[in-house]
């Protein structure tokens, strides 16, 4: 586990906002030299704290107006059915994330669709036909914000 100091935390916060900033520009904001900043970024990457970059796209402008979270309960359980379900569900392009959870549901899926009619198609043809699928609960996403997290 990596221990962060105040400057590491500032670098992380800055890169979580905009990962395209280079070490020179970022260093100037923090009063650090370009090589010192670069070394810190490299250390954060090498230790696995920064795992990569992610594009932040406006889904609606790209024609994907609906995001639905599905809570899925499996009807039959056992090691084989979990694997079958996971393999099939990850192959669906509209399913963006699959999380294995404990609690009311077994899995939590994030599904993107062009509109409600498109979502209904995905739900009927792709989701409800998954091997071992049981109860499904749907919640339509209205708003979403990512927080900086405990970076003091």
């Amino acid at each position, binding site marked *: 586990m990596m221990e962060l100091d105040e400057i590491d935390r500032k670098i992380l916060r800055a890169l979580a906002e905009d990962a395209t900033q280079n070490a020179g520009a970022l260093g100037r904001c923090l009063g650090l030299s370009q090589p010192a900043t670069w070394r810190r970024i490299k250390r954060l990457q090498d230790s696995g704290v920064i795992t990569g970059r992610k594009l932040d796209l*406006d889904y609606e402008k790209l024609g994907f107006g609906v995001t639905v979270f599905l809570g899925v309960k499996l009807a039959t359980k056992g090691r084989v059915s979990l694997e079958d379900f996971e393999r099939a569900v990850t192959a669906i392009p509209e399913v*963006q994330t699959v999380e294995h959870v404990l609690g009311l549901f077994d899995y939590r899926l994030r599904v993107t669709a062009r509109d409600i009619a498109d979502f209904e198609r995905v739900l009927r043809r792709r989701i409800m036909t998954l091997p071992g699928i049981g109860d499904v609960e749907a919640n339509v996403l209205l708003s979403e914000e990512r927080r900086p997290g405990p970076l003091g």
Partner: protein
Amino acid sequence: MLDDLDRRILRHMQNDPNGSLPDLADRIGMTASRLSRRLDKLRESGVLRGQRAVIDWRALGFEVEVSLRITLDKTQTRAFDEFLAAARDIPEVIEIQTFLGRVDVRLSVIARDMAHYQDIYRSRILTLPHIADIETLMHVARIKSEESLPI
């Protein structure tokens, strides 16, 4: 409006978000300066909001991740606003989503271990305003997390 080239650029960037601009330009078969002009346009139109570094909280010692599905007391007209404002003040809340459905709000909460989680839950979460009901989902594993659009 997006054209085919915009879509191709975004597809490539989604598949390899860590690639450099010259590499990307190479793969698409355009010059870096033309690509960067296209990207500026995508940013101006708001389609491309930015690129963010992905933080692995486990590597920082946050071993526990919990989804709290919360139903609010909607008889209070300001329930949503007041709840969200208070939830933003909790540093361990890394994601806030609002829904249309059986659940009103979902919070993603991270903690160092179960004792730490219990402390956050009791002292910060349960004291949030206008909660009618809370359900908890504990994260076991992320099976798929590409969050890429079928553009």
